[in-house]
């Protein structure tokens, strides 16, 4: 218990250092926030214009797509915020910084998580909240405690899922010693294309996104429950299944750590 407390306070210490260093360059920080905001605003505008033309796709209206989009965007922004250190991990390996991390008497994962705290994603989070509000206002959802819980689970599960994918990508660089650009489709691609409920992409994509990387567990299934399209209340609990995926990712990470031989630089 004591070590847990120590680790948590150490993590917050790391974060406070990161935040202070970011705040040294305030103009740069605010412009980055604005830039990130605009980048994802593009996506929202695109969806808005498409829906001005088509009104619905597979019976999802604009409000319903916005709900889905908002949750995915929030998941991704939170994951980038907390687990962004993994995204920089391939660079750490290449520059030999990871060797230094291994020398310290403290968990490597904690140090990697603490090395980054992307506070600039705050713009995305605000945007997602606004989008969610709009989606909620225009789509007729009867809010029940169960549905609120489903949204909370979607957010928790989604953040965990994206963080797990970041970790998996980082773990791959133990073996390749460099980043895997093709893996971007699993992170940025999922964020971008996850704006629509996955079933619009067809049955094959549903299978891939359930059995390979379980995106449907945090998006399609709980969404069906949220929108009242299914009698199966347990769809709302599906985000919990992400824990299974996380276990696999942690396994790969451990395997990588075990076989790590350093880049020698």
């Amino acid at each position: 218990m004591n070590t847990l407390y120590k680790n948590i306070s150490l993590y917050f210490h790391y974060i406070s250092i990161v935040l202070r260093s970011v705040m040294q360059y305030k103009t740069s920080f605010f412009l980055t926030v604005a830039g990130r905001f605009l980048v994802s605003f593009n996506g929202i505008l695109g969806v808005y214009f498409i829906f001005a033309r088509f009104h619905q796709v597979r019976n999802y209206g604009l409000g319903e797509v916005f709900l889905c989009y908002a949750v995915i965007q929030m998941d991704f922004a939170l994951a980038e915020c907390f687990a962004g250190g993994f995204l920089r991990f391939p660079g750490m390996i290449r520059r030999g910084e990871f060797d230094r991390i291994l020398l310290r008497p403290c968990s490597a994962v904690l140090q990697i998580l603490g090395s980054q705290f992307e506070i600039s994603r705050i713009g995305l989070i605000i945007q997602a909240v606004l989008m969610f509000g709009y989606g909620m206002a225009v789509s007729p959802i009867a809010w029940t405690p169960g549905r609120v819980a489903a949204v909370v689970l979607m957010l928790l599960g989604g953040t965990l899922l994206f963080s797990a994918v970041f970790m998996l990508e980082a773990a791959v660089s133990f073996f390749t010693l460099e980043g895997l650009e093709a893996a971007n489709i699993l992170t940025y691609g999922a964020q971008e294309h996850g704006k629509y409920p996955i079933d619009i992409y067809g049955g094959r994509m549903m299978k891939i996104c359930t059995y390979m990387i379980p995106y449907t567990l945090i998006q399609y299934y709980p969404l069906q429950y949220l929108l009242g399209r299914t009698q199966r209340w347990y769809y709302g609990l599906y985000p919990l299944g992400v824990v299974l995926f996380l276990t696999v990712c942690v396994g790969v990470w451990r395997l990588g750590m075990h076989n790590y031989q350093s880049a020698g630089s």
Partner: protein
Amino acid sequence: MKANGNSLRKYFSFFRMRFQMGLQYRAAAAGGCVTQFLWGIMECLAFRAFYEADESAFPMAFSSVVAYVWLREAFFALFTTWNTDNELFDSVINGNIAYELCRPLSVYRMWFARTAGNRLANAALRCVPILFAAFLLPEPFRMTLPVNVQSMLLFIITMFLGAGVTVAFCMFVYLLAFFTISPQGLRMVFTAMVQFLSGAIIPLSFMPDSVRRVLELLPFAGMFNVPLRIYSGDLVGAKMLRAIGMQIFWLVLLTACGKLLCRAAERRIVVQGG
């Protein structure tokens, strides 16, 4: 005249240098190809769903949209404003710009040539495998050949014009570095806007008519929008001629203004020692 020919050769060698350098990054390009190919598939599937939702609201033929998506993925590196040469930003920040200013060359032309070379190399590496794979896909997601020889030729011409407009615009973004200490944030703001305005997110034809009419007057419409729609036969006749005219107009105007701004920037630059 001979002197002029000579000086153009200098800039051409900058272009060639960057082009050959860009061709070296094959492993990165291979990774990029896979990502962009999968990205294209997702886009096609999404458009398919909208096509099935309301066929009559679809502003282009479905095969034209598919061709648009694949060409966008194949030539993304040529037109995207994300892809900026960070060495140029760094040279302003770390003072290496001093060496560039010493050269008996125009900074504007030199950077223009470098950027163009870089972009062409990136696109040349990526377009072949992506298009090859796209031609092998099953219907309705298969890439189609251009409608006729004329549209193929016009596609190539407008692609170079569009690339010219893109580079001319990027030059403005580089020149920003002279006027601000943190160009990365501004760069992000600019590039984010351009992505949308150039038809990289959704083809401009999908936007409401009033919005589309305004966007077609802006320089950004010449980037993805014009060449990609000419290829698939979506942009033809008088509208096409007008679009090509706009590309040429903006190319001339942007380079002229860029040169002026560059001169102003060179005059006020202060290089710190160290």
